[in-house]
Structure formats: structure tokens, C-alpha cells
């Protein structure tokens, strides 16, 4: 395929998205390749289905393209923003009872067939993405890691976590907040993948 390999791979996410908004296909390619594994890892984890995750990932990146001009950098990595889009697409899919495809329809994208080889590759990529996410979590202090994992990953409420950990809800909130702060800093330090 027409792969664009140039210095865009070293650009910051915000610069890539600004370029995408100015119709720079190479910038989109660099952004897609940078974040695809983490998006797949998140979607495979949430859906438990590689095919569905791949389909939704296509929709997520179509939405990234549609929203690139509106991106406002909070930290150097746009990964939290992309994962936010993925989460929204997932919720919309469950709510509507079908795989969300608005962004792809809007862009006029054609359906793409998914064969067994591609499924295998997607699974491998998702595993790599899980590795990166897990690596970041592993660098948190144990109590913060546990709180972030329960609250953000497993979506358990603060009060329930407090009950399980036998501490106050306020303590849990602080641990989650500090843990997320550290993750943000990690993303800032890591810069582009």
C-alpha cells in the first residue's frame, strides 16, 4: 500500500492533528499508526471480540479525522482523547444495538473485508497495545494502581472500592486522582510513541 514514511512519525500529536485538518494524509497515517494498537487493545478488552473491535477502531479513526480540527491539546499525547472517542463509539453502539458507523458513512468509506490473517494481526497489535497500557499502569504505586484499575478500567464506583479496600471514599478519590495525574505525566514525558 501507499505507506508514507517521513519525519511526521516524530511530530507531536497536536501537530499531526493540525496537519490532518489541513488535508495532510501523511500526518493522518502517522497518527493512525501511532495509536492503533492502544485503541485496538481498549476495544478488544471492552468487547471481547476482535472483529467487532477492528470494525469499531475503523469508526474511531474516521471520527478522529472528522474531529481533528477541533482537537485542543491538554497533554502532549492525544491518546486519552482518542480513547475517549473509542469509549463514546462503544457506548453509542450498545445504545443503538448496532456497530456505530456514522463517521464512516459521513466520509463515504466502503466496507472492508476482514480475513483470518488480518484478525490474527489485529489480535497481535491489540496485545502490544495492552502491553503499553499495562506498562504505564505498572509504573504507578501499588495502591494508586489498584484504585485506578478498579475505577477507570473496571468502572467500579468510589464507594464500592472504598468498601472493598476498607478505607474512606475520600482516600479512594485521592488515589485515583493522583494515579491519573501520574499517567498524564507519563504520557507527557513519553511524547509520541
Amino acid at each position, binding site marked *: *500500500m*501507499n505507506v*508514507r514514511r517521513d519525519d511526521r512519525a516524530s511530530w507531536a500529536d497536536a501537530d499531526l492533528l493540525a496537519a*490532518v485538518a489541513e*488535508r*495532510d*494524509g*501523511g*500526518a*493522518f*497515517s502517522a497518527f*493512525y*499508526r501511532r495509536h*492503533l494498537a492502544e485503541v485496538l487493545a481498549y476495544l478488544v478488552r471492552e*468487547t*471481547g*471480540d476482535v*472483529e*467487532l473491535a*477492528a*470494525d469499531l*477502531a*475503523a469508526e474511531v*479513526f*474516521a471520527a478522529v*479525522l*472528522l474531529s481533528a480540527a477541533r482537537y485542543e491539546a491538554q497533554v502532549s499525547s492525544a491518546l486519552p482523547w482518542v480513547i475517549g472517542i473509542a469509549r463514546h463509539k462503544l*457506548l453509542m453502539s*450498545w*445504545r*443503538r*444495538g*448496532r*456497530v456505530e*458507523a*456514522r*463517521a464512516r*458513512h*459521513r*466520509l*463515504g*468509506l*466502503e*466496507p*472492508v*473485508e*476482514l*480475513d483470518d*490473517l*488480518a484478525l490474527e*494481526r*489485529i489480535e497481535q*497489535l491489540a496485545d502490544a497495545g495492552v502491553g503499553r497500557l499495562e506498562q504505564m499502569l505498572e509504573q504507578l504505586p501499588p495502591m494508586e494502581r489498584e484504585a485506578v484499575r478498579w475505577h477507570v478500567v473496571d*468502572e*467500579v*464506583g*468510589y*464507594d*464500592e472500592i472504598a468498601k*472493598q479496600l476498607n478505607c474512606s471514599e475520600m482516600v479512594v478519590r485521592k488515589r485515583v486522582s493522583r494515579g491519573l495525574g501520574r499517567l498524564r505525566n507519563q504520557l507527557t514525558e513519553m511524547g509520541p510513541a
Partner: protein
Amino acid sequence: MSMDFLEAVEEQLVAATERGIKRRRWRRPLLWMQRLPLRAPTVGIAAGVGAALAASAIAATLTLPASKSKPKPVEPAAVTAGTGATVRSFTTAGTVPVGFQPVSFTAISEFSWWLLGTAPCNGHTCTAIVRTTDGGPQFTRIAAPPTTNVQNVRFGNEDDGYAFGQQLWSTVDGGRSWTHQQPGSIVNDLQIAGNYVYAIAYRHSQTHLMSSAIGTNNWTTLGGLGRGYLSGLWVQGSTVFINSGTHLLVSDNGGASFRRVGGTHRVSDCTYDGGPQALWALCSTGMAPDDILLSTNSGNTFTTAAQVPYGPIDSFAAATGTVAVASSQGPLYRSGNAGASWARVKAPSANWIYLGFTDATHGVAIGGFGKGGMQDSRLYYTTDGGVSYHRVMIGP
């Protein structure tokens, strides 16, 4: 070298980037969650219900994300499957679980309904199904499939039912036992008409329309639909409507053959309701307000209804050829003049995830309340064709 899925997606998106995005006029919706919800009276819905419901089952097709932040007293419901894995589901009959949140509705008569939803159990969110045989005053829990991978329920009669989502499960004994079916890796939609069940199943990155005689689980793939992304399944009797990706197709013989109709409108993301002679379509237009269309000639041509205030539209249902309701960013709106205009319905603002009618005057709505409309799911009922809705209490 063959191009794989991820590369093909990348190439299409790169090409789309270089083409540029045609900007739409975008009207920001009102932040409905900031408004104070109105209070509706709470009544038992059997009161005042007169007309018999339509014979075909109706069902919710949408799903509310599980409540995250208000765990309530839990009931031991998680069971351990043979593999040792814990199944998060109420797999036995009993009382309505505390904190039950309905997400999907189906009915086969005026008084016989089922609701699939979730409830807290052992610190988790578990699948539960409740039913009523008296139109709402009393609900009991029936056994649910041993999975959280179902978000929708349909029953065709007292015995034969289906729960589906990422998985498809069926029962032939009113929910006493469930069997895992595998027509595809995910079931996007499922409709029952007469003695047949139709499902859009997702397999090998393609959608397929499957059908089976109800209760037999003998699934066959229906052909003649092209290779597009199938959606918008709507069935009544032997009439089947479905989007083929770019066209609306209709079958008059239960899916044995299809022909193309509705050529004047893009139908790649539409859902349908009503009847063959007055077919309503809700079509997504991306980020712009959604379109509601109406056909009075079996889908051959459509006219565009007036825009519902504050679109995009969350859910939609048609009661007759002239009456429909739609939820738009919180409030419910009703048209009594074939979509010429829309008026606010007497019901609270909510995240309305499902609207449906069983006949010209009776219908239900499932709404999400609380922060973001995602914390407390409630069932509402109308007996006046959607002019007003009243809350139906389910369990404790």
C-alpha cells in the same frame, strides 16, 4: 501483496483526509441534562388500557450503559459455570432484583411483557430479566442467560424468546432454560414476525440476514442483499425491510427475495417503524440533525418530515401513519400530523433510549436519569398515543 483490513482502512482514511471534509452547518444541541426534569405521576399501567395490542412482539433495541455509581444492597446472583468462571447473571427465577435497570423491552399482548436489564450482584453488574403477566403492577424475575453479553430481549410467544447482543441465546420454555446460538459473532438486530425470527448477524466482517422458524434455531442465511453493511431491519408479517448499505430493500415473501425501493434517499443509516403502507424512517445524517422520512407507498418514495427541535434524535417510534414520537436531547416530541410539526410531550426530560408503540394508543419508553442520563433507568407508558407518559414501577 494483499492489503489487510487495517491497511485498507488506513488507505481509505488517508484518501478521505486528502479529499478534505465538507463542513456541515452544526447546531449545538441544548445541554438537556442541565434542565430540571419534570415530575410525572406514577401509576400502574393496566389502568385504563382498553384496546388489544398488536399481535407482533415489540421490543427495545437499544441499550443503556450499566449504572456505575450507585451500588445498592446486593443479592447473591453470580453463579459459577463449569469452567470455574463466574457468570454475572441472575440465572434463577425469583423476585425482581434490587436496583434493576431496564434496558430492553418486549411484549406479546396487552399484559404480557418482559424487560431485560441489569442489577448489582456481588459487586458486579449482572444480567436480569423480569416479566409481568398483568400489564405492570407486578413483576417477577425469570432466569436469564448465564452471560452479560446480551443487551436485548424479544419474545414471540409465552415460550419462545431470544436474548441478544454480543451473543445470541434462545429459550423455548419461557426462560426456564437458555441455549447459546451462534449464527454469527454478534447479533446487531433481531425481529420476530409471525412464526419466524430474523436477525442481522455479524460474521467475518460482514453482516448477514438470517432467519429461522421460531423455536427451532434452524438458521439460514437470506440472499440477494449485496455485500453492503446491513442495518435497519424491520419486519411485519411476511414483509421485510432492510438497508443494504446504500439502498432500501424490501421482501414481500418473508425474505425469499428482495427488490430495491426508496431510491431517492440515502438509506445507509436508517431505522424503520410503522407499517408497509405508512413506513416511517429515522435516518442519521452524521453530525447534522437527523432526518425523519415518511413513505405512504411501501417505501418507494419518501417525504421528509419537519425537523424535531434540537436534533440529533436519540430514539423514535411510530404509532400510526400520522402519529410518531421522537426524543431529542432530553425532551420527547410528538407529531400528530404525519411529521408536519412536532410538539413537546408531557413527560420528563431524560436520556430516552427506547420508544415503541404496541398499537395506535399504547406504547412504552425507557429513559435514563441521573448524571449524564446513565444512572437510573426507568420505564414509562402511554395510553393516549404519546401525548403523555406515566412511570411504571418495577420491583423494589
